[in-house]
């Protein structure tokens, strides 16, 4: 006992070792907790489900508009019919979620055979998911396509194609256009696009035949939506 009291150096080392040991253990415990920490967010699972329903409701609007614009005798109620089917089928697709989707203000229209022609459809939706207590989640879905004939110079036609909110549609080629005059469908030699400061993107359609006015230009985008414009 006397030795312990007199040897102060030894005590200091022991206290230091003990403190370092406590420090290592506490830091180790903290680090283990940090790397194994998991915060469960049940909402994340449902956000993807809501996103999937929202996206496919938009796809339904686009599909209905594509059907409407590609049929010789279009069904005026195609959008309403498809919406009703989708609302009924959703409960069968996502079993056990208690999904209820209601739509309102659905509209489908075409304004064709003008210099600037358009096809458009939209609907407002209200989504309820009983299993998570979600009620009254509202969203809008709209599909739109505009074709504007800017000018015609000899065998060349310049047009712009725009989607929702006026965004230019890119990546269109010969397969997406059709040019005709009052008697026949004209043979297109090339379709090219270039940047123009005002219109952003302009498509130039070249035809092999001499173009007599009036001419009709048809466009189909990647969703299958059609627009027909006439010049002049």
């Amino acid at each position, binding site marked *: 006992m006397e030795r312990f009291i007199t040897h102060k150096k030894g005590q200091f080392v022991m206290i230091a070792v003990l403190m370092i040991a406590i420090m290592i253990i506490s830091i180790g415990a903290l680090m283990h907790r940090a790397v*194994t920490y*998991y915060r469960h967010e049940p909402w994340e699972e449902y956000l*993807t489900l809501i996103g999937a329903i929202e996206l*496919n409701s938009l796809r339904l609007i686009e599909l*209905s508009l*594509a*059907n409407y614009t590609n049929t010789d005798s279009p069904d005026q109620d195609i959008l309403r019919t498809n919406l009703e*089917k989708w609302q009924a089928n959703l409960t069968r697709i996502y079993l056990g979620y208690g999904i209820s989707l209601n739509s309102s203000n659905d509209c489908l229209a075409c304004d064709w055979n003008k210099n600037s022609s358009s096809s458009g459809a939209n609907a407002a939706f209200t989504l309820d998911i009983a299993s998570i207590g979600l009620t009254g989640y509202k969203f809008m879905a709209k599909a739109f396509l505009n074709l504007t004939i800017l000018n015609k110079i000899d065998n060349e036609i310049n047009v712009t194609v725009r989607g929702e909110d006026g965004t230019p549609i890119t990546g269109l080629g010969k397969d997406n256009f059709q040019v005709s005059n009052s008697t026949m469908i004209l043979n297109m030699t090339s379709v090219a696009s270039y940047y123009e400061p005002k219109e952003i993107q302009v498509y130039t359609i070249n035809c092999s035949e001499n173009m007599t006015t009036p001419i009709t230009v048809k466009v189909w985008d990647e969703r*299958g939506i059609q627009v027909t414009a006439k010049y002049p």
Partner: protein
Amino acid sequence: MMRNGKKGQMRIIEAILASFIIIFALSFANIFVITPTSPKYEVTELQKLGYNVLHDLDEQALLARFIYNKEGDNITAALRVLLPLDVHFSMTVYDLQGIKTDNTAIFYGDTETFATSKNIASVTYGLVGYATKINDAYQATYEPRIVILQLARG
């Protein structure tokens, strides 16, 4: 007096060196630390992963094209790119009557994994239809498909 002062300096240097050694040891150990997967939430994690992958493909308008054109190889390739390497998957497509629409196997991984794994996640995803070009005319009909994607960690 001077001797005592020098001793104190040495202690400080020792303490600094010791803390450096501890920090170095901890950071070295941290390199080898692998975040353990929580078995409790494994299925939920896989479900989230599956939903996100299908949603991403659908947003890029690829999922509907692959499914309605029966491009099974393209779906397999896309899922293999988007999912982590250790996640095995099996996808089946049904119509509303519950009949398989495509008999091509959309599968990646070991069949043993699905037979033995305790944590298999199943994701259901609905599609409305796809506008296809047939003889220079688009056909756009409402034709829903139910996509069932099963996931397991191999």
